[in-house]
């Protein structure tokens, strides 16, 4: 062999199946899937992971993730995950949920699983809209954003205000770690990866409930091209949902 043999720097994680996803161009789900899969590989967790898929755009997550998965009814992922974790306290349990699933129909399950301090890691994809059902208002839809059910833009007097679910969960005593990141620039995606890693470590250290909120572009339903959607996420969506650590009582310090 010559001394210039090529070194493999990048490949598909084992935790992802070689299936083409159904996600739209510019959607954040593909990036989020990739981050989760990379971390499960890197942390040696794939074979002890049980994932819960939501309803909404990520309902088919079990077609893409290469580990044990179950599909939950609308909004109930954290209740299903609670049942799983109580049977398998030694396994790694993950829910992957969108804003409609986690912050609307599943609000009760989300708050109470967090409040029980379930040792589960939750990936919360916030794209401020209902994607799968065709662009209706979500509880996270920002004021003024036009959705198919807010034709003049979201009006708080008629439609209520955007819900900051991460702040709400931070109030629960048994939540250990909550951080909000954005799937936009390379820098932000790397930050998101570190946050997800920390959330995984919180569970592995048996500390309690953790959640990483990922602001995620939805070019199709926002009616933008992918590039504009990324920019809008970073410049406008972050005004309603500022990035950063919202709560951290893990004592784990910086994660690299």
């Amino acid at each position: 062999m010559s001394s210039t043999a090529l070194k493999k720097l990048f490949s598909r994680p084992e935790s992802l199946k070689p299936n083409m996803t159904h996600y739209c161009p510019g959607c954040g789900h593909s990036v989020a899937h990739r981050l989760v899969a990379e971390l499960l590989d890197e942390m040696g967790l794939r074979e002890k992971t049980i994932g819960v898929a939501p309803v909404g755009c990520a309902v088919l997550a079990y077609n893409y993730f290469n580990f044990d998965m179950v599909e939950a009814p609308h909004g109930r992922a954290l209740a299903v995950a609670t049942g799983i974790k109580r049977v398998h306290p030694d396994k790694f349990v993950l829910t992957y949920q969108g804003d409609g699933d986690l912050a609307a129909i599943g609000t009760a399950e989300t708050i109470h699983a967090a409040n029980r301090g379930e040792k589960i890691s939750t990936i919360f994809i916030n794209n401020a809209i209902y994607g799968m059902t065709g662009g209706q208002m979500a509880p996270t839809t920002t004021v003024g954003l036009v959705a198919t059910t807010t034709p003049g833009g979201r009006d708080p007097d008629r439609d209520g205000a955007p819900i900051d679910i991460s702040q709400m969960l931070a109030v629960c005593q048994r939540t250990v770690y909550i951080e909000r990141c954005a799937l936009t620039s390379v820098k932000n995606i790397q930050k998101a990866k570190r946050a997800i890693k920390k959330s995984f470590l919180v569970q592995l250290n048996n500390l309690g409930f953790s959640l990483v909120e990922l602001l995620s572009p939805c070019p199709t339903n926002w009616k933008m091209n992918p590039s504009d959607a990324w920019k809008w996420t970073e410049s406008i969506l972050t005004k309603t949902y500022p990035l950063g650590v919202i709560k951290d009582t893990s004592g784990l310090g910086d994660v690299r």
Partner: protein
Amino acid sequence: MPSEKMLMRGAHVVGEAAVRAGCRYYFGYPITPQNELPEYLSSRLLEVGGTFIQAESEIASINMVIGASVSGGRVMTSSSSPGISLKQEGISYLCGQELPAVIVNMMRGGPGLGNIAPSQADYFQATRGGGHGDYRLLVLAPASNQELAEVTFDAFDLADKYRNPVMILGDGLMGQMMEPVIFRDPIDPKELPPKDYILDGCKGREPRAVFSMLLDPPTLYQHNMKLQKKYEEITAREVRYETYQVNDAELILVAYGTASRIAKGAVNRLRREGFRVGLFRPVTLWPYPKEALRTLARGGAKIGVFELSVGQMVEDVLMSVGSTSEVYLHGIPGGPIPTPADVAQFALSVLKGDGLVGRKVEI
């Protein structure tokens, strides 16, 4: 060895039988009149290293059941009528995903909040599928604390055998009533046969996915036809019923659960007076013991249905006997509990054909 004879409340009997049957996971939400069951399990499951969670809602609890079941645990939830309505979505998913679970419904009067008196008004919901989609539950309707212990034990085995939820259908009276009971030997859940579909991490095997979303129409069709085949198998194998004094009967009363206890009292009373009256008691409400009832009806007896609902089970009776027998109904909604004397009056009214109590029903 089996337990000594114990005097216990029905709700506690279900809890004890569940633990002895290997149930280690219970998720529920309080609602009267079945709270003594979760209260019992909240301490009893601790003793055997199990898990009890008082969930934030009936909806959350049935979904915790999904999670525990897909993980391989023997799991139970319980509720009463309005709470069972809330669990229906999850029950549909359990059926779609073919996951075993035991669901106890100690029925109360409805619709809406109704009352907490004994009732059998959830018959349609239990036997027809209160949730969405083409599915069936095995529905077991015991009539005594001893039978409550037996069917609770069997319910877990049936759920595992068919990978399908099983409902134990009782009522507020049954949950509260104290009677002697002898329990079977306890099972160690660790010694139950392994399940090849559960999620426990994919170490050493291909990952598994458990889901019920089948977007491709032919695939959903095949899945539903597979479920139907399973339901046909259950119908062929698992029918249970009891007959009492039916051989020479001119009139056969049909009743289940608490209503059958009252009807049996009526039969005894009428037999003493020389009337040829018997009782047919379905134990499985789904699958309904159609063939057995049809065979009895061919003997020429009239049929008198007595139920604590205004006419639900009577439809299964009509579907069983067709036009072979005259069918009469005495249906009482939740609230006042008739006495054996009341049911005897119904029976006499049918025998005399005076139409004073109950009414004739036809297909």
